[in-house]
């Protein structure tokens, strides 16, 4: 039983680290600010989430786990607010995202399409 928990925990921590490394590579490879944010978004939601889940299994059923849960909840609620603020500020300052297609006018033209 302990063996299985240990194994799952290491698996979670390892895959979390892999996703964080991939996210970091993505931040270098992506062409502009907005696409870089998507690579960062893997790190702060999925990578950090997997890592913390692995830590929680390591800590077992205790107060430490609960605190780790609070930490992941904190990341979970603050992350999107920061990303949104960054994206909004960038658009406001006139940073032009590289787009292959701009569909922002889609609901204004002609009749409103349900979607």
């Amino acid at each position, binding site marked *: 039983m302990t063996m299985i928990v240990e194994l799952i925990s290491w698996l979670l921590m390892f895959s979390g680290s892999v996703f964080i490394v991939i996210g970091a590579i993505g931040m270098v490879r*992506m062409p502009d600010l907005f696409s870089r944010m998507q690579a960062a978004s893997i790190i702060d*939601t999925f990578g950090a989430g997997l890592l913390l889940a692995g830590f929680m299994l390591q800590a077992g059923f205790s107060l430490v786990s609960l605190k780790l849960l609070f930490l992941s909840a904190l990341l979970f609620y603050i992350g999107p607010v920061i*990303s949104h603020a960054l994206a909004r500020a960038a658009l406001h300052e006139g940073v032009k995202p*590289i*787009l292959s297609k701009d569909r922002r006018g889609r609901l204004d033209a002609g009749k409103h399409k349900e979607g």
Partner: protein
Amino acid sequence: MRMIVLGILLLCFWLALSGHYTAFLIGCGIAVSSFAVLASKRMKIDDDEAVPIAVIAGIPRYYSWLFWEIAKSAWNVARIIVHPKLPISPCMTVVDASQKSATGIATYANSITLTPGTVTAGVKGKRLTVYALTQEGALNVEAGLMDQRVRRFEGRT
């Protein structure tokens, strides 16, 4: 009702973080949480937006769905990053949120941002401006599956 729920939640938070259960420290916890409740009442921030008790019942179902969505799209974005050709097709689009409450719209916008590959870059009334890393991601947001989920989530009372 809202005040009682807020008070209990704050007290639980205190107990969880303290870890020492002597009469003095628990007494401090009760005093501090009731003070915080009274302060939030006096500041008039004890409304539906600050303490959305209506959505508590729907949390397990919506969150487990959202975690699965995050996992799927994180996998997709990771695959794009390690792909030698970097096959992105960035796209911006607008969607109308169908939620009734401010909490619902905020939940929807934040869920879009949390999902790797899409980010909400602006909210004006009920209209969200969304940046997506791939055209497929943009079409998924336009299809509105997440919108329906969030509406069901906030609709429970």
